Structure formats: C-alpha cells, structure tokens
C-alpha cells in the first residue's frame, strides 16, 4: 500500500491531526500550492495519494519546515510533502540535479533558503 | 520448551502497588487492553512492601519472571516508598545478574493509575521477553550436588 509507505517513510500518523490549520497558516508557499499543507494530511488519511503525486505543491514547498516546527500535535505535515516529493523524484529519477549543475544555476539573487532546500530536496 | 514440545506457558508474578499500578491494571482491564494470562497480579500497598524474599521465593517456586510495578518516582502515595524500592531493586537485580540469572527475568516499571495502556504494553513486552528467555532453570531447584 502506497499509503502505508508514505506513513512509514514520513513517520507521520495522520490521525494525530486535529485540523487546526497551523501548518497552512505558517506556510510561505501557501498561495502557490494547489493542495495546501493541511490537506496533505487528510489526503493521506483518505488514501487519495494519486492527487498528491500529481500535485503542484510538492514543487512549491520550500522545505522550510515551519509547519513541522509549529504543529501543536506533532503531526509534521512537511515530512509528508517531503515524502510524496521523494516518491515522485525516485520514480522519475532522471530529473535529479547533479551537484555540478547546481553551481551553474547559482546567481546572487537566489535566496539562501532555496539553495539549502534544494540540497535538502535532492540530496537523497 | 519442554520435551513434549508443549507450548511454554511462563509463570509471571506481577507485584502492583495499590494506588497506582494496581489501578493502572484495573484501567487496562476496563479499557479491554489485553495482555497474556500468564501474568498474575499480587496487590501490595506500595512497591516498597516487596521484600526481595518474595521475589526469590517466586523464582524458587517456579516463576519465570517477576515484575514489580509502582507509582512513578515522585508520585508515591506514601511519598517516598518507591524511592526505596528503586534502590533495593537496583541492588537486588544487579546481584541476580551477577550470579548469572538472565537479565530480563526481573523488572521494575512505574505505572500510574492513568496508564492503562502502559500497563498493558509493559506486560505484553515483559511476557514476550520471558517467552524468549524460556523456562527459568537457573534460579530454580537445580543445585548440582557433587
């Protein structure tokens, strides 16, 4: 079951969520996301994984983990997004950035955070 | 495992203090949180009532594991009882380990009246350990007389 895989890899128990929305309230990329951070939890709960795999949100997430930090129930929705993204990345494989490419993509305007999250995202 | 290949049914004695752990066991019961029937509970007023003699006697009579449950340190109904328990059992268990009794046959666990879940998981876990250790022969009646 892909749902179980997600739970296992992310370590997230979606049943712990009390639907307070703190994750979405904290999210800097909220407006760019089609499926909002808090929805990730309920999507996993409802086993609608396909929608998540196709979601734009996994590319928009900055992996800043504000949602993980601030979640009062210790659900860690950011880890879910990360996990789904990993599943997509692993599937596609070829689109991985190599470390050499990263240096070429650098420019002074690039936010530090993006760089850090790029490494977070692609290191696995 | 005995020779007849019968299933090993360990004997486990659990000493529970009246105020926390016994109530925790009650809560496990009313919450229907199962644990093996091998565990039999003896009620004592406080974990500090448990004399090392009781534990050794249980082993003498064929127990395979003995677990002692009391209030969490700081929560003892008699305020200090479990602190004494902690020292006494630390020394006793260390001694049992020293003379070659498998570590794991004895345990102290703090279970409050509200921790029905903890009581059940503790007992399941302990029973599992005893199962894996098998029958207690070392502390049983097996002196080799030359």
């Amino acid at each position, binding site marked *: 079951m892909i749902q179980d895989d997600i739970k296992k890899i992310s370590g997230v128990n979606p049943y712990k969520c009390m639907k307070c929305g703190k994750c979405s309230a904290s999210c800097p990329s909220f407006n760019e996301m089609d499926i909002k951070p808090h929805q990730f939890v309920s999507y996993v709960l409802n086993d609608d994984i396909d929608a998540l795999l196709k979601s734009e949100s996994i590319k928009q997430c900055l992996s800043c983990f504000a949602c993980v930090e601030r979640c009062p129930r210790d659900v860690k929705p950011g880890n879910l997004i990360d996990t789904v993204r990993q599943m997509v990345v692993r599937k596609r494989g070829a689109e991985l950035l190599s470390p050499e490419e990263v240096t070429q993509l650098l420019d002074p305007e690039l936010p530090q955070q993006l760089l850090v999250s790029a490494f977070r995202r692609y290191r696995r | 495992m005995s020779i007849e290949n019968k299933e090993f049914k360990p004997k486990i004695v659990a000493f529970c203090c009246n105020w926390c752990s016994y109530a925790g066991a009650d809560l496990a019961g009313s919450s229907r949180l199962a644990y093996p029937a091998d565990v039999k509970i003896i009620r004592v007023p406080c974990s500090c009532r448990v004399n*090392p*003699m009781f534990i*050794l*006697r249980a*082993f*003498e009579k064929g127990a395979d594991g003995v677990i002692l449950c009391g209030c969490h*340190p*700081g929560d003892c109904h008699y305020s*200090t009882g479990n*602190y*004494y328990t*902690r*020292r*006494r*059992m*630390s*020394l*006793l*268990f*260390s*001694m*049992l*380990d*020293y*003379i*070659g*009794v*498998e*570590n794991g046959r*004895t*345990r*102290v666990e703090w279970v409050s009246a509200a921790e029905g879940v903890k009581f059940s998981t503790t007992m399941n876990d302990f029973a599992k350990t005893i199962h894996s250790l098998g029958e207690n022969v*070392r*502390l*049983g*009646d*097996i*002196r*080799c*007389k*030359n």
Partner: protein
Amino acid sequence: MQELITRGKELLADGSVVGILGWKEGDFSYNPEPAFFQNEEELDKFIYDGFCGANLSKFMIEASKKEGKTLVFLKPCDTYSFNQLLKEHRIDREKAYIIGVGCSGKLSLDKIKEAGVKGIQKITEEEDKIHVETLYGDKTLNRSDVLLDRCHVCKGKEHRIFDEIIGESKETNDKDKFSEVEAIEKMSSEEKFLFFQKELSKCIRCNACRNVCPACSCRKCVFDSNKFDSAQKVNTNSFEEKMFHIIRAFHVAGRCTDCGECSRVCPEGIPLHLFNRKFIKDIDELYGEFRAGEDAETVGPLTEFTFDDAEPQEAVERG
C-alpha cells in the same frame, strides 16, 4: 603483647573495667581464639599475635548487657564493625573501653598450609618474614604471601573509634578490592551461573558465616523465624543456599564493613565476600562511595535516596 596485658591488669585493678575481650591461646599456639577475661590470673593466657584475625566487636553485644565496662581490643578494621554496631544501637558505647591495638596484617593458616608447610610446631613473626618450625625442619615465608585475603584490601591503619591506642599499625593494602568482582562481572551470564552454582553447591548451611558476621547481629535470623516460612529448611530445598546467601548479603548491604570474616570462617571455602563486595561496589558506583562503619551516625545507602537515582534497569545494564 605484654604492654596490652599490663594495661589490662591496670584497668581491672582500678575497677574501670570488669572484664576484658581479647584472644587466648587455642588448641595450638597458632590458632588463638576470642576470649573473655574476668581476672588477672586468666589474663596470663592472653595472646595477641599475627593469628588474632578474629573481630571482637560482635562480642560487645553481650558484653553491653553486663554491669560495668568491658575492655575490648580492636584492630583498625575492627573499629568499623564496632561503629556500625553502635549506629544500630546493638552495643553501648558507655559499656566499652576500647584499646586500639596495632596491626600490620593478620596471617592465614590456610595460606601457610597451601604453601606446602606441614607438621607445624611453632610460628614466629618478624617484620616481613614468618619463621615456621615444623616436624620436618624450619621454613621461612614472606609475610605478604600468607596474609589473610582481607589484609590485601586493608582499610587503613587508622582506628575509627578508641579510648587509647597501643602499638603501631601498618597498611597492607596491595590489591584492588573490586578486582575479583570485576572479573566475575566480565563473565558471560552462563559462566557466572556456573561459577556461583559450583561455589554455592558446597554450602552445608553450617551458619558459620552468619555467626561470625558482625553485621548479622539479629537476635533471631529471618531464616530461623517463622515470619517467612523459611525456618529449618536447610536440607529440604537446595534453592535455599542461593536464597540464603543472596538475602544474607542483601540484609547486610550498606552495613557490611567488608571485614571478610565470612570467607575466613567458611569451612567449605566459599568466597562469600564476593556477594558483599558486589553490593559495596554497586552502592559506591550508583549512590556514591560509602564505607559502613566509618562513623556511627551516617545513615546507610538503603535507608536514603535521591530523586534522580538510577533505575533498576540502568543499574543492571550499566555493565
């Protein structure tokens, strides 16, 4: 020795004491035994030499019940036991006049015999040497080779309690007291079991260990009372030995002064001190160093606690 006798006679004569706890010659010159002297004539049999290992403090329990004071001779290590008994109100300080006697290590007859010496007639001591006259000629041994085990882990030359001191003492400490315990701790569970099974299987439940132990001073031992259904079970149940020795060690944990008398007197040669020393080691490591009998006030480690003591599981696994 003469000085001790003279002083004893003086104290008897001026009425400061009514009796004297000391040692007198036994069946052989080299195995003196504890004795109670009540007058000058008896004192002529008084002896104090390298074989006076026996700890006299426990005899003060009975002596405390007498009218008047008793003079008791204590070696430095004996004073620990005396203090411990004092702490437990088993003896009365007012009833004892303590002369701290000098000690430079006591001798083990067993070790002399183990060294191949037979037909012993007479033994004389020098500073570092022991001369043995035997039926087969004279022999000389190194003192340090024939010391009692406990002298190798000597607690020091200081008397912890006394009224006066006669004679010089010397520290004979040359071994780590926990090395034997550590060696066992390093064994596998199976090895430990076999080791203790072998040793404890020798036990004949003669109770010599219990009778000699200054900490085992109960009027009636639990193993003799009906309180635990454990009385008179000596030979009905072989588990008893294990139970007996663990419980005995547990009951004296935090009270045992590590005097080693239990091992010294065991007719089967069971190293019983290994139980006590394991507890002492655990107590030192878990609750801070504690030496029973250093004084007569400090409460024992099993009758106190701290809020952040180790959990039993940690205590066992710290290994």
